[in-house]
């Protein structure tokens, strides 16, 4: 039979003034399981805790009720007191007679006392059904996987590796760097993107704790926090990176020319190529779709010219497996395709380009050597019209959200234009100028003064051709009139959109994504870098559009989370998790559907003793379960038990008053 000890606290006057504490003690003594009850000024103080310890030993108590403040205040304190007396800490229940009684019924001492008694009865009843629980410790594999090698992935990998935790960095393309490697100068300080990025890229390549796997994709992730297994497909590069010296003989001689993605197709690259001169790793890959040796078996020049003999046309995709404990997803963003803007003549007029194309043109290492040119005739443009919010904030044609970075980079573009073409003039059609950020508003104001750019507030309704010029017609809402601007070049600030393969990636990782394809964080305010799946974190634009400073902050935050997770050899977990009783489980798998964390998997067990046939049952991974109880309530046959909130505990509470 249970032997319960009850300790009622005065909390100085906080409880005692409004609840008749001695009467509560007398009342609980009448419950037959209560073998000891007492009162004290401050139960949470050292002498108070001492009383609990002594009574446990003296009265051989089997569970403890402390009637005091909210369990959210001192549950931990009292649990510790139990441990100190050699008792399992989870045999404690707290009756919240302060927040739930003395403080809220200050005008009616009798009622408050009655309620306090009931709360004690409930806690006593519940505690009788309490079971001994033990903290769960889950082993961790201290290695992190970073998916995506843009600035987000680079920063996260470096920060984690600097803490001496091994990192596997998987990048889809042949080089890390992401979109930032395509940028010229960056707002709001106009430092050159390459100058600040390439040293970091080199650090990644040479870091003893980073294993860089470029030209690769994640195929499969299994397991749970601290204990994932990942399968990575390393695409065949047809170049042996170990022997290749990166001399460049191959791509100089390769006869096949294809549009160069890095320069947004403005110039050409070869079928064997490194995406850009500063690429990391600085080794070429063969683009299997376009290499005539691989498609038709004709050519083979690169192999002939390669002195170290690094070219291998027979190379196959390779599957790499790694054990890891945490994942940082940093797959960045795509540029939104402006084709739906037919009235702008997108696709018909060559001299309409996107912002990233402009970025490449003004870039010193770009296809036009840093001076913008009209794609139609190569002339240097004088009048340039920038149109903002192309696709952004446009439910009809594009997407509802604000892409957040376009206002700032368009401002940057007006400055870059002004620097490169001194006698040029820029016009900006805009809806709003959103310049929230440190130094951003100042940057915009200064640019407007320095460049003399004409800002026109309104949407562009039509672009048509007049001679070799483009006529941009739009509304200037400030004067309420339709305006027309003659332009040599039109630059569209196209929206940022989620990477196309995010939904597929999310499915294989077991995390969620929003209606646009951005990966979802666990809580929009308080857990912005975690996903709902423990041990998987988000950095950069894959979660939502953001600029470089924000991307880097989030990446470092991910690193801090990963380091925190790996701070011990095992992770300690609250034992309040669910378990399934095989015998009662019918294998309907409804619980699998409701678990928000994917903690429930299926298992095969023998149908009965000595029978070979197997049947399917559900099984909860205690390392992943967060103890919400969703599965418990939907399991019809009550096969699931949530420790700390079991059915018997709750029934006892309900019927005890």
């Amino acid at each position, binding site marked *: 039979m249970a032997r319960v000890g009850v300790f009622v606290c005065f909390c100085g006057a906080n409880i005692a003034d409004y609840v008749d504490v001695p009467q509560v003690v007398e009342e609980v003594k009448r419950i037959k399981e209560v073998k000891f009850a007492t009162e004290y000024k401050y139960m949470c103080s050292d002498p108070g805790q001492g009383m609990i310890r002594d009574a446990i030993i003296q009265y051989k108590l089997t569970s403890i009720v402390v009637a005091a403040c909210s369990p959210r205040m001192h549950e931990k304190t009292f649990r510790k007191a139990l441990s100190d007396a050699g008792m399992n800490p989870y045999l404690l229940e707290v009756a919240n007679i302060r927040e739930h009684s003395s403080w809220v019924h200050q005008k009616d001492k009798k009622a408050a006392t009655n309620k306090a008694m009931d709360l004690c009865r409930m806690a006593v009843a519940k505690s009788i059904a309490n079971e001994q629980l033990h903290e769960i410790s889950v082993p961790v594999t201290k290695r992190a996987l970073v998916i995506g090698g843009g600035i987000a992935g680079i920063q996260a990998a470096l920060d984690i590796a600097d803490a001496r935790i091994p990192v596997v960095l998987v990048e889809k393309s042949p080089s890390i760097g992401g979109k930032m490697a395509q940028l010229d100068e960056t707002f709001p300080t106009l430092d050159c993107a390459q100058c600040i990025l390439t040293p970091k890229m080199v650090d990644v390549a040479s870091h003893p704790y980073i294993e860089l796997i470029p030209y690769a994709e994640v195929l499969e992730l299994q397991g749970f926090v601290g204990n994932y297994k990942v399968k990575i497909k390393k695409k065949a590069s047809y170049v042996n990176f170990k022997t290749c010296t990166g001399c460049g003989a191959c791509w100089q001689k390769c006869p096949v020319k294809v549009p160069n993605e890095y320069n947004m197709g403005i110039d050409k690259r070869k079928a064997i190529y490194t995406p850009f001169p500063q690429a990391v790793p600085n080794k070429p890959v063969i683009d299997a779709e376009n290499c005539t040796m691989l498609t038709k078996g004709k050519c083979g020049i690169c192999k002939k010219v390669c002195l170290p003999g690094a070219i291998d046309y027979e190379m196959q995709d390779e599957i790499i497996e790694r054990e890891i404990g945490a994942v940082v997803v940093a797959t960045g963003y795509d540029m939104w395709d402006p084709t739906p803007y037919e009235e702008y003549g997108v696709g018909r007029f060559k001299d309409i380009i996107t912002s990233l194309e402009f970025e490449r043109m003004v870039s010193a290492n770009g296809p036009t050597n840093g001076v913008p040119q009209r794609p139609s005739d190569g002339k240097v443009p004088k009048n340039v019209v920038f149109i903002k919010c192309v696709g952004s904030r446009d439910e009809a044609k594009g997407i509802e959200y604000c892409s957040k970075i376009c206002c700032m980079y368009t401002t940057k573009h007006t400055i870059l234009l002004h620097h490169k073409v001194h006698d040029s003039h820029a016009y900006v059609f805009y809806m709003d100028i959103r310049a929230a950020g440190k130094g951003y508003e100042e940057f915009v104001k200064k640019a407007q003064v320095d460049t003399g750019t004409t800002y026109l507030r309104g949407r562009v309704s039509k672009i048509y051709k007049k001679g070799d010029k483009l006529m941009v017609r739009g509304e200037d809402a400030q004067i309420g009139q339709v305006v027309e601007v003659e332009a040599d070049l039109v630059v569209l600030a196209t929206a940022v959109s989620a990477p196309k393969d995010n939904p597929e990636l999310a499915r294989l990782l077991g995390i969620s994504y929003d209606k646009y394809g951005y990966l979802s964080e666990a809580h929009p305010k308080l857990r912005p870098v975690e996903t709902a799946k423990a041990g998987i974190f988000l950095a950069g634009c894959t979660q939502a559009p953001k600029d470089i400073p924000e991307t880097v902050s989030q990446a470092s935050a991910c690193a801090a989370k990963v380091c925190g997770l790996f701070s011990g050899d095992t992770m300690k977990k609250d034992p309040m998790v669910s378990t399934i009783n095989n*015998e*009662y*489980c*019918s*294998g*309907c*798998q*409804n619980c699998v*559907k*409701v678990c928000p964390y994917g903690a429930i998997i299926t298992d095969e067990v023998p*149908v009965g003793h000595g029978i070979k*046939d197997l049947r*399917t049952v559900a099984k909860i991974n205690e390392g992943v379960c967060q103890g919400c109880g969703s599965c418990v309530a*939907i399991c*019809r*046959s*009550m*096969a699931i038990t949530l420790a700390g909130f079991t*059915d*018997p505990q709750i*029934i*006892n509470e309900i*019927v005890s008053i």
Partner: protein
Amino acid sequence: MNYTKQIQDIAAKLFAEGKIDVFVGYRMNGFDENQVPVLITDPQDVSKLVFTDKSVFNLVNYLKTDHTRRKRVGIVVKGCDSRSLNLMLTESQVKRENLYVVGICCEGVVDDAGEKMQNCTDCMVPDAVVSDEMLGTAVSGSGTLTYKKNADIVALAEKPLTERAAYFEEVFENCIRCNACRHSCPLCYCAKCCIDQETATLYNGANTTSAAFHALMTWSLHLAGRCVDCRNCEKACPSHLPLHLLHKQNESVIYENFQEHLAGVIPEDRGAFYKYSLKDPDDFIM
């Protein structure tokens, strides 16, 4: 509606081809006009099989037994039965590849008095939704399904609360806690039903009105969003409790608030409690 011949032929063929171990169908009970379910394992016995508008039971219930589990089974399903089969499939209780399903385009079955059953006059999905072979011509029109709210629950809902309370107290008082309702429901296949578990405090012991109230309320909520209105439970109840009232009440709330389709009509679709929508009603919550 008489498919006796066709079903006998199908069963004989399935046995001859060695495709099934057991066939679940109906036979005459041997003393009056009524039929009972039969599990046929001997090909000689296929001549016992019948199918008419007296084939009232939901045979899917027999897929729960050891005679059929993990065996290759031929089975006859009407519209409502087939929906429960769909749910059994979704909830991994049977494997589709182990079944040969004879679907009926059902014109409705009749009760002892020869009257068409209420669930049949109200039926919205008369043709089997899962089958390997269909018998009869499609009964459901091509038009969109309109939900018919059960007349009994509409009538009860209009009565004053106190009358309803009195009515149901009498209903629950008549329950003898035999659990026939649970045993006869194909969707009550749990390895160990909550009602049988040691958490006896839940039901407060055995045969009291209060215990019956608790058990039947819980039971009906376990069928909420899953019950297919086959009324096997009601047919089995020795005390003739109007069990459909509870199920139809839940079904109408679910249909009107969460999903515009009935349980088991969509393959892979789980009961309404195992999914949610952000648009679910919220106005009943303060």
